[in-house]
């Protein structure tokens, strides 16, 4: 679990996860082309994300495709968001989204 928080604590790595959330199964080159990061930067951050299991990869011929694995985040959620707290947390999260998108 330490690795998950460490991986998420960096804005560049969150941007990488956002890119995979938008389009899953991307190659290193595709990610590099899309983000304001060097190839080395993307590789370094992907390694941290893979170690935290937030990114999982598959070989497809000569290509390595990267996928967002949301399961570790679900495990964190299930550890602390109890049965009774979730409806409140979901409601407040919706409220924040509604208000912020109206501005």
């Amino acid at each position, binding site marked *: 679990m330490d690795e998950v928080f460490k991986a998420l604590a960096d804005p560049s790595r969150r941007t990488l996860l956002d890119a995979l959330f938008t389009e*899953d*199964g991307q190659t290193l080159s595709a990610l590099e082309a899309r983000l304001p990061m060097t190839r080395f930067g993307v590789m370094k951050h992907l390694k941290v994300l893979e170690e935290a*299991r937030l990114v*999982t990869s*598959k070989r497809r011929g000569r290509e390595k495709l990267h*996928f967002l*694995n*949301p*399961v570790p*985040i*679900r*495990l964190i*959620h*299930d550890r602390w*968001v*109890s*049965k*009774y707290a*979730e*409806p409140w947390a979901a409601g407040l999260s919706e409220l924040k989204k509604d208000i912020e998108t109206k501005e």
Partner: protein
Amino acid sequence: MEKVFEIYIKTTPERLWEAITDEETRQKYNFGVGVSSDWTPGSRYESVHPQAGIAIAEGENLEVEPPRRLVQSFTALWSDQVKDEGVSRVTWEIEPVGSSCRLTVTHDQLREGANDELYGGWPMILSGLKTLLESGELLDTPGSLRYSGASADTE
């Protein structure tokens, strides 16, 4: 479109295989829905919600290699919207790692921009499976209970 979900669970491949294929065990972490089949290659399987009697999903067991690999075709049946998505494919892969197993669920052959209800439940299901196998307890977050009939008091 392809989605990949991965989790480490401290258990044996045999126990994990049983938890995936045993109808009653499956109900404990799969939104209350089990799966019934004779698990021979090429056989059919179906998931029916036991209380509501509603068909949730069905398909064919394309590859059955206990306790390592299960490939299934998947047709979601719980609403007209998901029925329109047609047939996709779910691959379960179990790999022992030390005293644990890595379980990878790959849901592919999905239409580009497919309804996210089709694959959005996997993190909750896998989290519940991990809790069940590692602690023997049921995960009781409302998400995991939403369709199990036990959540009426929280919704």
